[in-house]
């Protein structure tokens, strides 16, 4: 979302340099033709930027012996949540999957929930 709104703004000074984009804050809105406020399109919300939780906490080693932490990266049925859902960075997701799979092996996390 953020990229979409910023992309037309970079073009605007070249088209009409004097009139617009003088005192505007960056990322305020594209072009100027559209009124401020919510957009008319379907996606008129700003998606919150997800940040990797392990990066925020500065985790260098994901411990497979702590199922309480791993639990929040697993679906209710036991599937590992994808990165696009949790916002985990690639490196931490890589470590996380290993940790989850180890925890599954020693029955700290389920492979799949039983009926």
């Amino acid at each position, binding site marked *: 979302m953020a990229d979409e709104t910023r992309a037309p703004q970079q073009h605007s000074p070249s088209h009409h340099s004097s009139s617009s984009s003088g005192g505007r*804050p*960056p990322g305020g809105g594209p072009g100027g033709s559209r009124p401020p406020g919510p957009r008319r399109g379907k996606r008129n919300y700003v998606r919150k930027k997800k940040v990797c939780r392990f990066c925020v906490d500065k985790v*260098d080693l994901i411990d*497979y*012996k702590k199922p309480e932490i791993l639990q929040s990266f697993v679906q209710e049925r036991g599937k590992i949540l994808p990165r696009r859902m949790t916002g985990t960075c690639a490196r931490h997701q890589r470590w996380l999957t290993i940790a989850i799979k180890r925890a599954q092996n*020693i*029955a700290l*996390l*389920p492979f799949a929930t039983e009926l």
Partner: protein
Amino acid sequence: MEERLYDLIFICRPDTPEAEIDKLIATLTHAVEEKQAKVEKVEKWGTRRLAYRVKKLREGFYVYMVLRSSHGELFKELERRLRVTDSVVKYLTVRLDEEIKRQEKLSNRREKRNARRPRKTAPAAPGAEQAATAVG
């Protein structure tokens, strides 16, 4: 050969008497020391709920050990013993030294970076403010 660090976790049946578990830990420790390896830590986590049924059990008594050894052969022997023991339902050995080495490297690098530029938060703050106004 360099020494390596391993985690060894095993799960006993919850109805095993504690004395028997202690005895098992003692025999394992003995086998470890026979190969000039070291037991760094032994933790009894106690009875926990299993995430899934193992040998029709829903609970198990977890024992966690940290070992330092330069003989990979040792773990063949330990795992054989655990397999043979009737009260043990599940076990897992994980080699951890490489991950810990990586962790230390990353932590050291972070510390160094913070030491070089201690006032990293000060110039970042106005930028964050701008971003906040732009979104709002």
